[in-house]
């Protein structure tokens, strides 16, 4: 599935869809980093994300590292089981990246 970043009705919430890998991670990184200039939490809805590789992981880490000194959080929601397991293994959630359960977030577009 082609990778896409979609806007939602909420300005600080984006929806990621498809496979995030080395082929599109540079573009994804640029798009997300633009949204990290502001010191406000950034919400990423991952329910449509099918797969990520290590360069995809790097995109989230880069965004997180840019938001952190601005006092803002990176909030990821509803990853599939494989991606969730990957985040846990990598210790992302234990070290500051916020993971929201599917039930605790508002639906998006």
């Amino acid at each position, binding site marked *: 599935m082609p990778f896409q970043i979609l806007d939602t009705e909420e300005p600080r919430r984006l929806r990621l869809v498809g496979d995030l890998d080395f082929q599109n991670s540079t573009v994804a990184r640029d798009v997300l980093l633009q949204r990290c200039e502001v010191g406000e939490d950034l919400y990423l809805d991952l329910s449509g994300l099918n797969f990520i590789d*290590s*360069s995809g*992981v*790097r995109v989230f*880490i880069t965004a997180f*590292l840019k938001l952190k000194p601005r006092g803002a959080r990176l909030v990821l929601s509803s990853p599939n089981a*494989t991606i969730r*397991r990957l985040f846990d*293994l*990598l*210790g*992302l959630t*234990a*070290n*500051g990246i916020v993971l929201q359960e599917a039930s605790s977030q508002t639906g998006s577009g």
Partner: protein
Amino acid sequence: MKTGLARIEEAYTSNFQEYLRGKDEQALRAAYELGREAVREQLSVLELAAIHHTVLASVLEDCGRPVDPQQVTRAASEFFLESLSAFEMVQRGFWEATQTARLEREHVTELRELAQASVGLNSTLSVGGILQVLVDQSRALMGAKKAVAQVTGQLPDAPPAMAVSGSDGPASDGPSSSGAESPGPEAGDVLAAPLIGRGDRIVGTIQLFGKEHGAFSDRDQSILRQLAQTASVAVQNAQLYERERRIAETLQRSLLPAVLPAIPGVELAIRFHPGPGVEVGGDFYDAFAIEAGAFGLVVGDVCGKGVEAAAVTSLARYTIRAVAMRQEDPSEVLKRLNETMLRSSVERFCTVLYGILRVADGGARFALARGGHIPPAVLRASGEVERVESAGALVGVFPDPQFEDRVVDLRQGDALVMCTDGATERSSIGGEQGWESLIGTCAGLTAEAIAERLDEALVGEDGRPFQDDVAMMILRVRPT
């Protein structure tokens, strides 16, 4: 309205009689124009000849005036020839058009054959393979009895190469390997072109010997030159590719231990599959002695590929080795590695599994910490599989990550499997669960046999190449 034939017959009669009377240029031009009209009306030469004969006969039989038959016949033939010249021009035009069409057809065929040869030359990645395509294609294209191509070693580590197609004998067909023989049945019947490398240096030659039919033409020469040019570029690319592959191999080798330590009472097996392409992958492993009876074991994965990833791999591997000699706890080793990577300017991170194996009577104790890496799996002698979970973040990102120390006691016959995500993410495996079920089938096997079975499952039935690097380290406490 009169038909074209009747009109021409009438005009022919009047103009012919005019010519007989005066024999002037104007009447002769009228004959030429008549011929043109006959061509326009699509009359055949035979029809015009018939008109001519009818007119001539009627003139000769004309009893009204005295005629000199000889003079009339000569004049008639002049007039007739003039009327035929339009036909001759048409015929010449037709011949030229045919000739042009033939040349064009030859040109198209030639272009197509050249294009096919180019594809063949460019889809081969070894110098020897390219030369073989070159000799086979040029021999077929030019109809030569034999073709020989050679490349002298231009790059420092590019060996010379040679290829031969056909043979010297009269009943020659198909490639032969008689490259060392003296070439050419006839000294004059040779066509050659140079292979040009970078900086316009001649790096080799292609030679054709003995054309099957006739002699080599200028056209043959230009085709051979074009083929040689295409081959030259392909050869250069192949040499560069080969060199890059060798550099990557050497670099990769330098990142992995040359020799594994002998651990008393413990079997150790390694499998390593580099990913596709010529770039160095990010997976690595290490095994080294810390002190008597204690060994450091490492499996890791640096994000990304290529030279930068290789630099980080090298940094990680030697940092772990250095710190391991002083620190007791694996978590401390990972913390120090994390600090080192954060201090270095590289924008990379890695996952690492580091553990200290201490051998004791009747078993071994493995103390480990996990830096974001896939947890190891313990295979008990009974066949039971345990996943060793622990907290720990990937290394080189967070300023103060927590790494948890875990201890696993291994008894005789117990094994431990560590791997990189290239293994669990391989489609033939079925994720972590699939990987652990597979490990569960290995009870009772030696470390080497376990590695072999896991490897077979990874390669799969179709033998697909690896999309990602895979590193595996398996240890087993020898049963008595």
